[in-house]
């Protein structure tokens, strides 16, 4: 359970608490179960499409990485915040059993339409530091006042 973030405490340039996830096959199979995406690309290393794409092992679902970005945004917003929008694009593949860092940084804070709006850059990063899933999020936060 995350601590509630308040608008008053947020600063531009502030980094969100990062975490790393290294999905194994069981994790990706559970994600297939939860998401309903049963593409064998993600769990069968002999799946012909992998070879056709010149990839050595199963690749992590883009939507899995999207959900990881969702976790960092949700943890930042807290139960009293509201996630208004979050999106990513899939710019690089991550392979199964490799570490994926999930990160975010505050890019702007403003009051708009009576709401306390915080804008974020959010992304996943592979072991080489490449942003494989860059994106942005918009969150409305409660204030202490």
């Amino acid at each position, binding site marked *: 359970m995350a601590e509630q973030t308040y608008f008053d405490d947020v600063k531009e340039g502030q980094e969100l608490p990062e975490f790393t996830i290294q999905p194994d096959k069981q994790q990706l199979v559970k994600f297939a179960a939860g998401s309903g995406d049963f593409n064998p690309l993600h769990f069968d290393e002999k799946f012909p499409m992998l070879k*056709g794409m010149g990839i050595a092992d199963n690749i992590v679902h883009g*939507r899995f990485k999207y*959900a990881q970005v969702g976790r960092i945004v949700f943890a930042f917003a807290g139960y009293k915040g509201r996630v208004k929008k979050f999106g990513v*694009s*899939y710019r690089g593949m991550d392979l199964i059993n490799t570490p994926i860092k999930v990160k975010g940084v505050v890019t702007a804070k403003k009051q708009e339409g009576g709401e306390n709006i915080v804008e974020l850059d959010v992304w996943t990063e592979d072991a080489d530091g490449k942003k494989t899933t860059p994106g942005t999020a918009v969150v409305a936060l409660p204030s202490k006042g």
Partner: protein
Amino acid sequence: MAEVFEVTDEVKAQYGVEGPPWTYEATTTSIRMYARGIGSVDPIHYDVDFAKSQGFRSIVAPLGYIGTPTFHPDTNDGTFGFPRRAGGGARLNLPTKGLLDGGTETEYLDYICAGDMLVETSSLADVRVRGNMVFVTNEAVYKNQESGKVVAKQRLTSIHIG
């Protein structure tokens, strides 16, 4: 090299044309499975009493999960689960050598909680060709079946490789 796909006037004519609606379900079981699928341990996704104590109707869907499309073998794709329906760019004759996810963007107007039945409609928004890749963007709108209120809008880009 010839383009792998041409964005013709017929393709453009499909922009914004809504396909038939489809029902998506978010249940306690499906939300817990999705939360396990992403490795979350936040009790807001698992514990109904806890979620209610925090002011939610029931357990909350993790961000990224907007329910599971109702499934029937005659109407849904066996691999991805999505409905194979007309509209939403379904009639495009796209290359099939490879398929990748290009991007996902969700605008949330409300939380999605267990027990929600959502009605989704989608339409083709954009098609772009870059080299041997065709970027197809669909826009989906999810309404709460009971209240009729829009709860989420999504832009989904898939990359079809020829």
